[in-house]
């Protein structure tokens, strides 16, 4: 009877301690998550500032693409090529989501596979963007169209570059036991960041290539 009582008391103490640790983690996680979402919103503000500057410049001239001093109209950007590059980036968003879901299922091999696929697709997107810069018929200083294009897509490309580094760090951390099946805020933040980068590209794709 005494042994059973002692066992119950110990069990209760362990349960209380375990739950209090989890509650502490959950509270900390919620605060960090809120902070990260606020960071993403602040990034939206930065992109919005540049996008509205682009809209202002675009509406301040009678023709778009603008006509140069030489009298010829600048060509539109290559929509077909950008469409392929866009699907590569959107595809990386889908693989990142799969990586996150794999982690939640505790399927580490699948997680590694999907995360590496995301990194490869991100690098492929940057490579495609680099090729487009190389073959572009506008320059940064040559026109408002070129200045807007290189500034906004460059800012986005920088975010993708940082995202790739972020994902590489997450890959290393996940394989060194930093995250567990119940504590993986870094992976959640990485997934949100990568989705955010994808969604910003939706706006840029529409503004520069479709409109």
């Amino acid at each position: 009877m005494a042994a059973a009582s002692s066992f119950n008391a110990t069990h209760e103490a362990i349960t209380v301690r375990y739950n209090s640790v989890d509650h502490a983690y959950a509270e900390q996680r919620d605060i960090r998550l809120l902070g990260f979402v606020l960071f993403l919103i602040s990034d939206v503000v930065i992109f919005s500032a540049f996008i509205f500057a682009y809209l202002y410049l675009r509406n301040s001239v009678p023709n778009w693409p603008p006509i140069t001093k030489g009298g010829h109209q600048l060509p539109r950007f290559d929509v077909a090529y950008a469409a392929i590059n866009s699907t590569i980036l959107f595809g990386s968003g889908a693989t990142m989501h799969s990586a996150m879901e794999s982690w939640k299922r505790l399927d580490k091999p699948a997680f590694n596979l999907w995360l590496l696929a995301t990194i490869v697709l991100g690098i492929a997107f940057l490579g495609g963007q680099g090729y487009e810069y190389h073959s572009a018929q506008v320059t940064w200083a040559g026109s408002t169209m070129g200045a807007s294009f290189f500034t906004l897509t460059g800012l986005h490309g920088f975010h993708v570059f940082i995202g790739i580094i972020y994902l590489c760090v997450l890959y290393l951390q996940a394989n060194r036991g930093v995250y567990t099946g119940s504590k993986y805020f870094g992976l959640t933040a990485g997934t949100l960041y990568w989705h955010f980068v994808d969604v910003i590209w939706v706006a840029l794709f529409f503004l520069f290539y479709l409109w």
Partner: protein
Amino acid sequence: MEGATGVTASIEKSIAFVFAIVVGGTTSFQLAKDWKSTGLDNQVTKLLLGLMAFGCILVILAAVGVLGGV
């Protein structure tokens, strides 16, 4: 820039169309699967997945020539 030949552009459009169908379908499936999940991170993820699926629709419309004048 718009220097691609007609054949090249057609091939690129076709590839983009197929990719967008695959990625858009996958994203929509993931969104439907997570639809009932709760919590701030899941809500933001659903919003972003939805916008990504919208991006795939834009690519499809561009590939078939409805948008962008391809």
